[in-house]
């Protein structure tokens, strides 16, 4: 059924931290690995070892360069070295499980649907005719056709992991989240204002991608933190390093002896 549910009990989704992501592509690879062997048709590749390999991936990392329009203290457009907030941002992108998902409503067969219980957007592959219209309707490029199977593939939020009681509790999260070595991906219920992910979004000012498209994406992105200059905001670190007030026993005696007076921990 391609009518969207009026409301979903939960809004399961991801929160992606653009400050923390190092662009290692581990989430991309683990996503492909889990999903090529799990739910639905395998994620096929075409010409994988040839000159022009392509294939279906459900999670991809783009890398963007952001340049402040008018760098302080410099001529317009002249960027030398580190310029204030100029930076490179690694940008993981997968299905955002939109509340108002156009990919669901355009589907002519009812293969695409949004689950009322948790808000996950899925494709029932046995019903998919592979017309590709849902991919056309998605502003985020979240859906990719599996050329071998002729059906549309997309992120399932690892539905075969998150509810899988065969797995250890710690593994019941999406493969991309579980594998991220930087802790840049978080999974949870964004419909619950007190969930860890909702609090994180609130604290860090999480935002929607392309809000003007009107899709109301569930996944949120956390902006890069403001830059700090070297040494900025850190108290005299040298003083901390030299503080030996906790030294006792032999080390304390040596400290006192070499410090030249009886006061422990003096400089």
């Amino acid at each position, binding site marked *: *059924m*391609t*009518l969207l549910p009026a409301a979903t009990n939960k809004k399961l989704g991801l929160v992606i931290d653009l400050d923390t992501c190092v662009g290692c592509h581990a989430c*991309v690879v683990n996503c492909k690995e889990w999903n090529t062997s799990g739910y639905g048709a395998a994620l096929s590749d075409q010409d994988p070892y040839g000159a*022009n*390999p*392509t*294939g*279906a*991936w459900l999670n*991809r990392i*783009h890398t*963007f*360069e*952001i*340049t*402040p*329009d008018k760098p302080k203290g410099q001529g317009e457009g002249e960027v030398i070295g580190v310029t204030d*907030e*100029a*930076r*490179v*941002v690694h*940008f993981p*992108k997968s299905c955002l499980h939109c509340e108002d998902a*156009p990919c669901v*409503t*355009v*589907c*002519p*067969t*009812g*293969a695409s649907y949004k689950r009322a219980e948790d808000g996950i957007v899925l494709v029932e592959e046995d019903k*998919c*005719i*592979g*017309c*590709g*219209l849902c*991919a*056309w*309707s*998605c*502003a*985020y*490029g979240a859906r*990719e*056709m599996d050329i071998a199977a*002729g*059906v549309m593939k997309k992120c399932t939020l690892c539905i075969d992991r998150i509810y899988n009681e065969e797995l250890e509790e710690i593994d019941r999260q999406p493969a991309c989240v579980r594998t991220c070595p930087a802790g840049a991906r978080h999974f949870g219920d964004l419909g619950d204002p007190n969930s860890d992910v909702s609090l994180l979004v609130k604290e860090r000012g999480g*935002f929607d*991608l*392309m*809000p*003007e*498209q*009107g899709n109301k994406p569930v996944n949120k*992105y956390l*902006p*890069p933190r403001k830059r700090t200059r070297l040494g900025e905001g850190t108290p005299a670190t040298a003083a901390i390093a030299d503080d030996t007030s906790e030294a006792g026993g032999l080390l304390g005696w040596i400290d006192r002896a070499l410090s030249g007076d009886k006061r422990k921990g003096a400089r």
Partner: protein
Amino acid sequence: MHPALSVIAFTTLSGAGYGLAFVLALGHGNPAALSTKLGWFVALLLIAIGLLCSTLHLGNPQRAWRAFSQWRSSWLSREGVMAVLTFFPLTVLAAMSVLGDTFNLALGYAVAIMCGLTVYCTAMIYASLRTVPSWHTGWTPAVYLMFSMTAGTLIYLSFFGPASGTMSNRIWIMLALVFLVVAWGVKFFWHRRSKAVGYGQSTQESATGLGHIGSVRLLERPHMTGNYLTNEMGFRVARKHEAKLWFITLLVGFAVPVLLLLLALLVPMMAGFLSMVGTLSLLVGLFVERWLFFATARHAVGLYYGGDEALVPSD
């Protein structure tokens, strides 16, 4: 967007077929005349070929019957349902002419309206997509409907009209000229809007949400080669030659047919031949127009791949 030949053939051929059926269903042509019978046959043939073409780009065409189920939300499904609903009374009208030499005006009006609705549904498949701002406008169904009726009028005038027409050939030529001018006028506004609208409100800054830091530029694609998204939505050949192709479209689809039809008014002896050549020229022009419709359309996902400045190796 990738201009798939199957989708271009589908929209142009079925559009012309419904246009011709529209003209015949309004009662033009003596139902007993051979040319009218042939006209019905050609209309049905164009529609059938068009609809068959539409299934060619499917990954699993054997499940195409499922596409009739989601008419409550999907314009593609509505198009399929309308095509089937129209097919039955259309076939009845055609059979009445071919087998019984008769015609029913009430049924004819119903079929004419249904033909229009089917073409409208076809156009709405594209016009309903928020991701492609140049399509997402009421001008899109207006263009599809006007071109469908223009093609139908010219085909009827050149191939099936003179022998069985209910009006004189001269009036039909003038009517065709009006249709040509109005249809291309509507298309002109569509084209002007399309060129101005680009990616609509979306930018690389809104796509990444990083605009508060500065201007955003793609540094690295997810991987070095193209993928389904860049092949499907990042088609660039046409954009490079957009101005030239648009000129060719106007020349072949508008200028040549109009000149030939004007000439046909001046030289009635040659009218048959001139209008036939003009009609074929229009059909070729519509094919290029439809190719451009797809090939020059900018899809929001292009913003994640560098927008218009990106160097996309595939295509």
